[in-house]
């Protein structure tokens, strides 16, 4: 009896094992072969459509269950808490305030009520300000069945909870291991091929480009990233600089999937350093030692030299300097706009319904971020190539940067902010406060 049970168990295990291996291999082949050969099977359209339908159904269920339980179901605000009135200057606001006081004085004097204006402005900043909003993850209007946002929907009902449970199984049991295996394979293949290409004397860069593109395609497949490229006629050409908005370190993979870029960055140690060294063997990249990064002239010179050579790949730069949550574009640092060659702006917009791509570096590290992305449904984004821009006569680097930023924000539908991305970690300079103080004292001294 016992022997029979044992042999049945063995048989079962073997069957399960074989099924598992076969299935995994099929999936692996379906994904790897197109990645290597640059062929598309059209599965992703089906996947995305199915997911969209499931999300719509989920939202409907939540609304219905809220109705049944007689509760108020309010959609989370995505445009901010305060209503945006026409922005008046300090002078206009003061005039409004004073005219209501029926002041009989003819010349402007200090009024105790003046402080009300600054008081209100201060409280409004506390309630809603653009910078803090840009550095926290975007809120969605419907639920995308991810664990992260589950606490917002406590009244979801049994059916949705089951569906969510199924989603967890699929994501962590099937998608995540598959993606990790793919990523590891891809990086391994890439490092080997890139190093071997580096030993070839001629046509090194031509083959190198092919190897790089293969590596990036692997990465894209391992993230299940579905990218739509718009306006490919404006794709960056050799000998120029490409600027883009920054949401996550994976932006590089998204863009480099289409054509090769020269990357700029610090030399790292460990696995990343190994990949960097392998990359440089078959394609020109600009890696700096930590000490050199502080020397701006050296950095600028190397960038200039690279850009001046019209046969070299375009340099990819993220002028914001830090990751922003993809609802707005922050101030572009003027360094890359001073070099003086053609700029190709590229706008990247992620569809947050399928997974949050924003890397909040103060909340989690890079590995955690990658795991989050790999356990989301997919990474869906649109890339728009904008027509090239050059610095005009009489325009300085800052104005040029602003112009490029405005065009980029308009194309992707992001808010155009003048705040510095560095505010994630540092404080605002006192100069801004002094500016407001100066404006106010002018009101008192000049005839209003």
């Amino acid at each position, binding site marked *: 009896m016992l022997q029979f049970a044992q042999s049945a168990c063995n048989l079962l295990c073997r069957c399960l094992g074989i099924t598992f291996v076969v299935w995994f291999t099929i999936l692996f082949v379906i994904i790897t072969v197109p990645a290597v050969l640059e062929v598309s099977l059209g599965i992703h359209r089906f996947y995305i459509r199915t997911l969209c339908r499931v999300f719509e159904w989920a939202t409907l269920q939540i609304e219905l269950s809220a109705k049944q339980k007689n509760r108020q179901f309010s959609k989370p605000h995505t445009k901010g808490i305060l209503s945006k009135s026409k922005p008046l200057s300090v002078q206009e606001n003061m005039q409004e305030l004073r005219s209501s006081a029926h002041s009989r004085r003819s010349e402007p004097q200090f009024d*105790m009520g003046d402080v009300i204006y600054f008081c209100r402005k201060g409280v409004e900043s506390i309630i809603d300000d653009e910078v803090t909003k840009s550095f926290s993850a975007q809120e969605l209007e419907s639920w995308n069945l991810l664990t992260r946002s589950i606490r917002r929907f406590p009244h979801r009902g049994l059916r949705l909870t089951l569906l969510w449970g199924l989603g967890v199984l699929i994501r962590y049991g099937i998608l995540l291991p598959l993606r990790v295996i793919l990523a590891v394979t891809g990086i391994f293949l890439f490092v080997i091929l890139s190093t071997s290409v580096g030993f070839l004397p001629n046509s090194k860069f031509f083959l190198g480009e092919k190897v790089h593109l293969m590596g990036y395609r692997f990465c894209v497949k391992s993230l299940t990233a579905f990218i739509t490229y718009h306006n490919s006629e404006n794709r960056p050409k050799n000998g120029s600089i490409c600027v883009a908005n920054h949401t996550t370190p994976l932006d590089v993979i998204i863009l480099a999937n289409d054509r090769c870029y020269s990357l700029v960055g610090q030399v790292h140690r460990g696995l990343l350093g190994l990949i960097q060294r392998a990359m440089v063997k078959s394609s020109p990249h600009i890696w700096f030692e930590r000490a050199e990064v502080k020397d701006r002239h050296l950095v600028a010179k190397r960038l200039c030299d690279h850009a001046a050579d019209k046969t070299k790949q375009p340099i990819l730069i993220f002028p914001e300097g830090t990751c922003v949550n993809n609802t707005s574009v922050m101030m572009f640092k003027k360094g890359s706009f001073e070099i003086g060659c053609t700029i190709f702006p590229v706008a990247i917009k992620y569809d947050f319904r399928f997974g949050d791509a924003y890397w909040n570096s103060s909340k989690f590290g890079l590995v955690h971020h990658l795991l989050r992305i790999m356990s989301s449904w997919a990474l869906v984004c649109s890339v728009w190539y904008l027509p090239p821009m050059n610095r005009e006569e009489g325009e300085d680097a800052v104005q040029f940067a602003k112009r490029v930023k405005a065009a980029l924000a308009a194309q992707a539908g992001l808010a155009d902010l003048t705040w510095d991305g560095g505010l994630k970690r540092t404080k605002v300079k006192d100069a801004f406060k*002094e500016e407001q103080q100066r404006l106010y004292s002018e009101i008192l001294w000049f005839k209003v």
Partner: protein
Amino acid sequence: MGAAPTRIGQQDPELVERTGFSPEQINNLHKRFLQLSGNKDTISRENLNDIPALAYNPIKSQIIEAFFDKRNQHDSEVGSLEEITFQQFLMVMSHFRPPTLEMTAEEKEAMRKEKLRFLFNMHDTDGDGKITLEEYRKVVEELLSSGSIEQESAKEITDAAMLEVASTNVPHMGPEDFYEGITFEHFEQILKGLEMESRMHIRFLDTATVHCGKS
């Protein structure tokens, strides 16, 4: 991660009554509170100091201090807190709630008095119930630039303003008497003509609330 982030308005109807905000507004303010506090239960002065837009404001420190001032909690206690909870945050915010159309004249008067009280507390930093010359001068100095010439002018302005207040409110003061400071009644008197209800409130965005069920 602290209390459940959503639906705090429905869970605590007392908050709605005490502060006068709608449940929707309370939910939104709670989300903002969590954003500012880094998902903790209390906010400290550093959290508010870190808001970049607030750095533009000349009276930033006074505004931040107002949030930690016990007098703004509708208590009769004096002093300041180190950290505030969401309930205390809301109580301070309630001074800035917009007037509704259904308010009676009495309620409007009470609201006006509340807002004036908030402003008074902001000037009266030591909590003795009077705004002295030094306290008033400090506020004026914060509003103007910090150059030395402006400091002189700030002194002149403050002296002139205090003199006017004194002569208006205590007309029979002799030359030997010392005007101690502006009391709350005098403060109300000075700002009598000023229409505060519409100047000192935050304009909330009208969010689309889907009312489900029977109403």
